[in-house]
């Protein structure tokens, strides 16, 4: 999302303060790791810093950067298994804990689709654009993820 000569609505520091926590939460839900979340959000802001005046819509740009960084750059630290995800320092209701565990078992793309659709409330077409995948593939990812969760939680 770039424009020529139009400054973003928010200055960089303001955007950092305003969006950092939301992006940390998104990164945590996609990666399952607090360490990865910190890394990728910092990296996303760092990469945006030098070209901030070219970024028209900071939040979608940063959101995309975070998801892609989790997917590509930090994937080695992602967890496939339930017991490996970072658990928050709070006691979760059993049904939440169970669902969180099953989410961790989803392939990373399906997990990203689920988080972006159900947490960020993005339509699947926007999820497809953000993940740079065909819309039909993302619809399939979405359906498969729900099927897996439904079977696992039956």
């Amino acid at each position: 999302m770039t424009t020529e000569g139009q400054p973003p609505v928010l200055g960089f520091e303001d955007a950092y303060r305003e969006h950092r926590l939301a992006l940390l939460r998104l990164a945590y839900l996609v990666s399952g790791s607090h360490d990865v979340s910190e890394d990728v959000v910092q990296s996303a802001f760092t990469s945006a810093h030098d070209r901030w005046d070219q970024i028209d819509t900071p939040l979608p740009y940063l959101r995309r950067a975070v998801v892609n960084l989790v997917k590509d750059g930090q994937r080695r630290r992602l967890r496939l298994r339930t017991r490996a995800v970072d658990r928050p320092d709070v006691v979760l209701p059993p049904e939440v804990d169970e669902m969180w565990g099953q989410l961790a078992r989803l392939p990373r793309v399906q997990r990203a689709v689920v988080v972006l659709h159900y947490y960020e409330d993005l339509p699947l077409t926007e999820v497809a654009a953000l993940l740079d995948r065909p819309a039909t593939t993302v619809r399939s990812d979405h359906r498969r993820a729900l099927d897996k969760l439904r079977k696992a939680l039956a």
Partner: protein
Amino acid sequence: MNDTEDRDLIEQRLRHTLHTLAATVTEGSPEGFDRRPAARRSHRRRWFALGIGAIAVPLAMTAASYVHEGSEYVDTIPRSDIVLSGSVDGSRYLLVESHRTGECGVPVTGVELVEEKKNLLGSEWSTTGYEYGEYLDTGCGYVNDTTRFLEDPARYVDGGAWVGDSFVWVYAVHPDVTGVRITWGDTSEDLRVHEVDGAGYAVFEVPHEVDEYTSELLIGGRVVPGSHEVQSLRRP
């Protein structure tokens, strides 16, 4: 409950779970942006490492392992990528986390076995890689898929390479597997499993006198049913 109600319920639980978990991330924004990286990892050192390039996947290969050889040159490897190091007959080797991008632009998970002598700085790389899962032939190429493997802890990928005059065997196992038991003659050895990308990886340095051994996967010290396998080694 019909399918629609079922799906509605799952979606409702999903939203509730995601928002509940998101709310546990409560770290407030710092006063200002700091360009330094967020997390400090271990120090890096120059030693030997992998080149970066495409992966050659033999067409007949279905288990997720591959050979990586080519004209690109060995560069440095971060210490934090080293899963373990070993030495057999004076030849050093590393098991390192893979950081390649495979066909279809998909990141390659798992590990690569790197022998020091074959991968000195500036030389052409020569490694073998192991991914937990199986390769599926997609429209754009082969992509590793863990779906069927995750459903059955007895499934695993294994393969080996010569390090010096010894054979080093690598196991890629289910996330729940905690050990790999190797038995030959009256000797038994439980290999430690290291986690990489959520799966487990273990290394067995095959002793010179061993031509055949059995392997079994362990979960909490108990043998995983169906994982028993006899391995025969043909030496040149």
